């Protein structure tokens, strides 16, 4: 039995190692509040991250899978969510058949900054700003730390490296041979936080990353909570089943 558990554990432990090694320097590590088996999101941090998304990222990046109603996860009330949604406009066709706009509703999703992909590319030097709803899960196994590092990974290129027109050097952007189409966005005091938190680069990068990780994995807290309960339950069942098995097999020893 021990052997089997060891074998299974070894397989599980090795499987990520089986993946091709990631190139590029080691990522900066942030002690995220949502790390670990009991991790939770920090609501105030998510609210600050939302502010960063709306004031900095949203002019180029969509957030297709997040609806305003989802912002209740961040601790906003129904009225606050309505107010946020109301700041956006959505196309509509009126009773006479003409194009018009209406105000956003909680059931609406964050609007796309560009009408279509070609327009987005034309506005960004040919590069398409990716949708951010899943970006902390789709780019790297260690997604949040990767996004955090990437946001702060802008440097002068190493000597002799030719950086293409309109591109920036980023030491963590291994997938694009360290040249990224996005220019550095995070600067100290780029936003003025509504809750008065000092807006250092690191603070802004952490807040937006945490917000984006919530956007990518909104059920994380439910998952962690359910996980603990399910594991405890299964553990008790397993102990009972072991005792029962021992009891039953003890019959074979009796003459």
């Amino acid at each position: 039995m021990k052997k089997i558990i060891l074998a299974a554990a070894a397989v599980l432990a090795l499987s990520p190692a089986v993946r091709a090694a990631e190139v590029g320097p080691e990522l900066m590590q942030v002690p995220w509040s949502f790390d670990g088996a009991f991790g939770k999101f920090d609501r105030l941090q998510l609210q600050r991250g939302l502010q960063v998304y709306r004031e900095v990222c949203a002019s180029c990046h969509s957030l297709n899978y997040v609806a305003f109603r989802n912002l209740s996860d961040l601790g906003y009330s129904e009225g606050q969510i309505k107010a946020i949604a109301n700041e956006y406009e959505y196309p509509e066709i009126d009773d006479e058949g003409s194009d018009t706009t209406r105000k956003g509703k909680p059931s609406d999703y964050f609007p796309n900054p560009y009408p279509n992909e070609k327009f987005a590319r034309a506005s960004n030097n040919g590069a398409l700003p990716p949708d951010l709803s899943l970006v902390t899960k789709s780019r790297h196994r260690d997604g949040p730390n990767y996004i955090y590092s990437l946001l702060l990974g802008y440097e002068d290129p190493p000597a002799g490296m030719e950086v293409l027109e309109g591109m920036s050097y980023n030491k963590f952007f291994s997938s694009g041979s360290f040249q990224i189409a996005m220019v550095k966005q995070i600067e100290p005091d780029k936003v003025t936080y509504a809750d008065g938190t000092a807006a250092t680069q690191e603070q802004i990068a952490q807040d937006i990353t945490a917000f984006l990780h919530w956007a990518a994995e909104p059920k994380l807290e439910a998952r962690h909570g359910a996980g603990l309960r399910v594991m405890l339950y299964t553990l008790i069942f397993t102990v009972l089943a072991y005792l029962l098995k021992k009891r039953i097999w003890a019959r074979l020893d009796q003459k």
Partner: protein
Amino acid sequence: MANSASAQPSPAPAGADGETRRDFLLYSTVAFGAVGTAMMVWPLIDSMNPAADTLALSTTEFNLSGVQEGQGVVIIWRGKPVFVRYRTQKEIDDARAVALADLIDPAKDEDRVQKDQDKYLILVGVCTHLGCIPLGSKAMETRGEYGGWFCPCHGSHYDTSGRIRKGPAPANLEVPPYTFISDTTVRIG
């Protein structure tokens, strides 16, 4: 494992401590397993209930300013038709003049509309008989013998309060939950 060469399982002595403890173990293990299985099945069942995006669309807002007196419109709410009618004073008076005892499903008109907005009658447009959609909302459609709606499937007649007056339908047209956000905007659901 077994130290004994005997392959024949000997039953545990009845009434001995071992037996009761095993019974307790057996029942608690089986109970734990059964409850655990049920808890694993529940998420599957619950996934068939309306999802969060469906629930988010379970209310709809409608602007009444375009509806003329005497006119009716049909809007969609939760995938079902909802009848909105701007009633004339005569229609309101007719509805209120009927004695409750004469009704199949007695209900006062005052209870089926909102006090300050009683000219607007808002109903789920599904016949309570077998789920057809009654006629009477569009100008050229028949409104039945009582000036309300008429269900063509099996001939149910509803009056200007949406109450069943004649035909096989057992109950009045349902009034959906709604509130007036302003004088001209109503939120249904």
